[in-house]
C-alpha cells in the first residue's frame, strides 16, 4: 500500500506519521489521532459534517487526502475550546440552542469559525451563503444563523 511521510500540526500539536496515500483527513483525525469530534456523514462533501480547517480554510475532511496536510496546520473542533473555555462561536451555539442531535454541530462550528475569521461582522445573507453547504436536519437553521450573529457581536473567534 503506497504511503508517504507526513509532518503536520493538529490543534497546535506537531504530528509526524507515515500514512497511506488513500487515507482521508477524516479517517486520519478520527482513527489515528482519536479526534472523533469530526463527523462523517455523506462522504461526498455535500453535508459539511466533516468540516475542519486546513491553514484556516474550511475543507471536507471526508474528501481530502491526509497526505495533503503535510506541512500545513489542521484545526478540528477539539482545538477550539481552551482548557474547557468555549470560544464565542461554541458559546453562542449553546446559548441559542443552535443544535439538537448535535451530529452536524462540529461542522457548523468550524465553518462559522472560518467565516468570522475572514468576515468578523457578517450579514445574515453572508452567513446563509457561507453555511449553504452545511446541512442540519434538526434546527431549521434559524437558531444557527442567530448563533453566528451572536458570536460576531461577542467578539468573533477570539474572547
Amino acid at each position, binding site marked *: 500500500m*503506497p504511503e*508517504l511521510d507526513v509532518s503536520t500540526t493538529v490543534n497546535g500539536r506537531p504530528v509526524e506519521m507515515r500514512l497511506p*496515500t488513500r487515507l482521508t483527513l477524516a479517517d486520519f483525525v478520527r482513527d489515528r489521532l482519536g479526534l472523533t469530534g469530526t463527523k462523517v456523514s455523506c462522504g*461526498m*462533501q455535500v453535508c459539511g459534517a466533516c468540516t475542519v480547517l486546513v491553514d484556516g480554510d*474550511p*475543507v471536507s475532511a471526508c474528501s*481530502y487526502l491526509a497526505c495533503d496536510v503535510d506541512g500545513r496546520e489542521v484545526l478540528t473542533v477539539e482545538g477550539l475550546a481552551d482548557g474547557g473555555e468555549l470560544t464565542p462561536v461554541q458559546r453562542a451555539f449553546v446559548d441559542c440552542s443552535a443544535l439538537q442531535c448535535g451530529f452536524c454541530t462540529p461542522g457548523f462550528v468550524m465553518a462559522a469559525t472560518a467565516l468570522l475569521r475572514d468576515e468578523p461582522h457578517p450579514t445574515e445573507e453572508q452567513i446563509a451563503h457561507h453555511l449553504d453547504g452545511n446541512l442540519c436536519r434538526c434546527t431549521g437553521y434559524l437558531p444557527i444563523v442567530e448563533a453566528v450573529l451572536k458570536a460576531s457581536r461577542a467578539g468573533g473567534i477570539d474572547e
Partner: protein
Amino acid sequence: MLPPFELRRPVSLAAAVDLVATGGTPYCGGTELLAVMRLGLASPETLVDLKRVPELVGITAAHGEIRLGARVTHREAAASDAVRTHAAILAAGAGLLGNVRVRATGTLAGNVCFAEPRSDILTALLALDASVDLRSADGARSVPIEDFVEGAFTTVRADEELLEAIRVPARSGPSAYVRFAPAEHPTVTVAVVATGDGCRVVVGAVGERPELFTFPGTGDVDPTAIAERVDITEDLNGHEDYKRHLTAVFVGRALEQMGVADA
C-alpha cells in the same frame, strides 16, 4: 474507502508534465476526482499533485486577457480584483458554485477538465470566449473552450496533456450571471456577455454541455427562442418542458439584470 494509488508531488512544471506524460493523473483540489474514485468510477494508479508546482499558481492580467493558472481555486477567482473587474460573470459563478469547502479547495482547471454538464465555470468561460492552454512532453497548444468540451464529462484533452492555464479575454462591458440551484448542482445556469460586436448568451446545466447563442445585440436576445432551441437532457433535475420553461425565465432574468428593456 478510496482505492490505493501512488501520490507524486512534483515541484516544477517540467516534472509534472513528465509524470502526466507517463500515465499519471493530474490532481489538485480533488473535489471531483476523489469523489469519482470513492464511487469506484475511476482508480488511477498515480495521482500527480499539482499543489507544489510554482508555475501553475496565480491570476495575472496582461495584454488584454486574464490568465488563471491551473492551481487557482474558485475562491481565489471569486475574490480576485482582476477577475471581478474584467470577467465579472466568472467571479460570480466561482463564488456561487458548490459550497464554501469546494470553493476553498477546488480549482477552475479541474472543473473544466472534469466537464460536469452543470459546471458554473464552463457556462461563464464559454460566454467569455475563454481558452485553455494544454502542455504535454511534446509541446503545447491552446484550445477555445467551445472546442475543448465535447460532451458530458468528455474533453479533447489527451491523457498525457496537462491543463496549464485558462485564458479569458478581458471585458468590461455589461454582463450577467444567474442560476437556479435548489440542490447542490444548478438546474439551469445563464451567462450573458455584451461584446463590442454582439451579445453572447450561454445556457448551461440543462443539457450535456453549456450551449452558446449569439445575437447582434442585447436587444435582439429572445429568451423564448433560446428556450425552444437549447438541447435538453431530462434527468432528476426535471423534465424537458420544465427545463425549457426555466431557461426562458432565467435568460429573461439575466437580461433584466443587465438593464435590457422589455426583457
